Structure formats: C-alpha cells, structure tokens
C-alpha cells in the first residue's frame, strides 16, 4: 500500500461533514464515511504520481499513525473509491 500511487476515482465526489467527509461513487453507488478530517486531507492530496508514503509524509502524518491510514486507504481502494 505504501508504495502504491493512488488517486481519487473520477466518478467519486467528496462532501465535507462535521466528522470528516462522505465519499460517493456515482458508478457503483457506494457511500463511504471518511471518519477523520486527516483522511480527507490525504485523499484529496493523492494525485496519482506520488506514492502513499510520500503523500502521508507530505501531509505531516506521524509515522506511528500510518498503519491506521493504510487501513482506511485500503478500504477505499477495495470499494473502488481510489484507483
């Protein structure tokens, strides 16, 4: 996961919410809760060129927290929100 280069699927829209954001995939109609503002920040920073590790570093995420973000990003990838 850390070496992957990911980006938000073009058919996914993010809507800011008090807890983070909602992500909706217009293609497969899945709705996912991004349950932390930092996850939203990272997802928005993924640009398809930098690796996940580079993005986490660029977003100033403490390495101790990386595993939980990897988990969140993996879930998003499984539901095709990230590609």
């Amino acid at each position: 996961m850390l070496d992957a280069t990911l980006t938000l699927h073009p058919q996914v829209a993010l809507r800011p919410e008090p807890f983070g954001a909602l992500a909706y995939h217009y293609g497969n109609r899945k709705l996912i809760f991004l349950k932390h503002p930092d996850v939203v920040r990272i997802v928005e920073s993924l640009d398809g060129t930098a690796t996940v590790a580079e993005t986490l570093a660029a977003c100033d995420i403490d390495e101790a927290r990386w595993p939980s973000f990897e988990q969140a990003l993996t879930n998003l990838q499984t539901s095709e929100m990230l590609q």
Partner: protein
Amino acid sequence: MSKTQLVEQLKGGLDAPICLTWELTYACNLECVHCLSSSGQRDPRELTTDEAKAVLDELHDLQVFYINIGGGEPMIRRDFFELLEYSIGRGIGVKFSTNGAFIDAAKAKRLTEMDYLDIQISLDGTDAVTNDAVRGEGSYDTAITAMQHLQDAGFGEFKISVVITRHNVDQLDEFKALADEYGAQLRITRLRPSGRGADSWHDLHPTQAQQRQIYDWLVLNGRNVLTGDSFFHLNALGEEPLPGLNMCGAGRVVCLIDPIGDVYACPFVIHDEFKAGSVRDEGGFSNVWKQSDLFTELREPQSAGACASCGSYDACQGGCMAAKFFTGIPLDGPDPECVSGHGETALLAASSIQAPKPMMDHSKPSRVAVTIGRR
C-alpha cells in the same frame, strides 16, 4: 473512529441529508391499503416543474448525491422524464419507486439509456392473490409486466421492493428467487402504521413469531438484500446486529419532501408534528434542513424513556418513531413491535387514547373498482 462513534456523530445531524425522499405527486393509479402517503388524487398545490428544478438546483449545491423519488405514482407527472433528466444532469442520481403501470417497452428503453438511475418496483406478494389483496386487483400482473420490459430492455439490476406483512413473510425465499430470475436485487422494508397503513397495520403487521422469522432470514441472507435500514428494532433478538447504521435517521440523515414542497422528518411521518417547513419558505430547503426547530430538536440526544431499563436498548434504540406515534405510544416508549414483548402492553395502554391520525389524505373519495389508466 468506531462505528458507534460515527453513529453518535450522525445523530447530531449532517450538513445535508444522505437519504432524501421526494414524493413528486399524490396522484396514483393504485390505492394500496398500506400506502404511507395516503395517495390517490393529485393535490392542486403540487410543485410546478420550475419549482421542482429550483429544488434540484439547491440539492446540487448541498451536494446531495442521490435522491429517492416516489409518490403516489411519480411517473404520472407529465414532467417526470424532464425532472429525471434535469436531476441526473445536475449530478444527483435518482432511484425511483413505481408500481410499474407506466413502464412499457419504449419507456423501459428510455430508462435503460439513462445513467445514474435506479428503479424500484413495488411488489407485495410472489403471487397475484397475496399481492393484489394489498395493492389492488391486477397490480401483480402490472408489476411483472414492467419487470419483464426492464429485463428485455437490458436495464440491468433494478430493485424489487417488498413491504413485509403477515401474509407475505413466508415468501421471503420466493421473493429472492424471483429477484434472481429477473437479475434484480431484493429490497424488503418494514410495514409502518403511516398513511393508510394506520388503518391496515393492526391486521397486516407481522406477528411476534414472524418478527423472529424475519430476523433469522436477514441474518442468513441480509448481505445480499437491501432493507433501507428498516428492521433495526429486531436487533434486540440476537447478538449479531443486522447490516446498516441501525438508528432512526429522521431529521438527522433522512427527510421527506412531499408533493407540495413540505419537508417532513421522514417519509413515514406525514403529520404536522413532524413538519419542519417547506421548500417554498424563505431560504428554501437548505434553511429547513439546517435551521428548523424540529430538526434541531431531533438531533438532540433522545431519552431512552421506558426502554432505559431494557438490556437491548443499545441494539434496538427503542425502534421506530413513526410506528410509535401513529399507534399512540409515547415517543420514548417501546416500539409497538418490541421483540421483548413490551409492545403489546404499550399498545394496550395506548388503546384508551385516540392515536394521532396521519394527515394529507389524498385517497380517492370512493373506493370503488379502479380502472388502471394506461398511456
């Protein structure tokens, strides 16, 4: 954040609804005995095409991803396709509920050509006798014909939507098989005493033993079946919670816009007590969603009331507000179908008072045989 924490957040409300139902008209070719909106005749005050488009513009600005369109029979509106196309063009996906009467081969083709569109055909029995007893004579054939047209047109996975009653609960496996046969997805929801359902609920709602039957079936099959999160009161029956958020979303993540633009906390509470405002008010829908007193109140922490001492409260949340309200049970009382058996006592206590009557009755004046108009 855990799921429980997320649910706590959601109870405090969202910036815009996730599940917005918009009933386009009170007109309907059928007269189902459990119709949640007591539909039948069009209301002369219904939103005009321009007003409806203005609401869609607003929903677009609020980033509402999709809406559930219903009625009445929404396809009766002459501007139905125009509104559908407008909504989808603004990035708001549509799922609409229909009895299928107006889906012929040509319309099925037209619907198939649209993106971001979902169709839900209502069917309450896997045979004509069971279905028509609730939805009216000929309605089973109508629904099956529409399903056939959708399949022939290659629509793909549409939905078959079933309200579970005492009489069709034994057909759950058959419903699933029927859906599979048409490449459709099955959706089952709970019968509530809303609209005309207030009169038919006592005879139609599943018995205690059947509640267990539904729960067991959902535990086995729930992952492949949609429920609109409507059976969470059954969670008190077991260790394993059913899929979904399992909370009452009224005014928090759910709301209804009725055909004349009034905004209610949920599609099952068409009554002044749950009316938050109108899209025609100053500030439009956004203002109602964000500022109305009613929605603000519904987003406050709710008291567990009579359920506080019940060990199942975390799982069941005291059930459905609409079901309590229209059976005369206090809102902090148990659900009338409480699986721990407190519903009967509560119903008995409520029987001495007059339960609130659903409002906005648009039933046709005479319940004589209806002829289904086709175009």
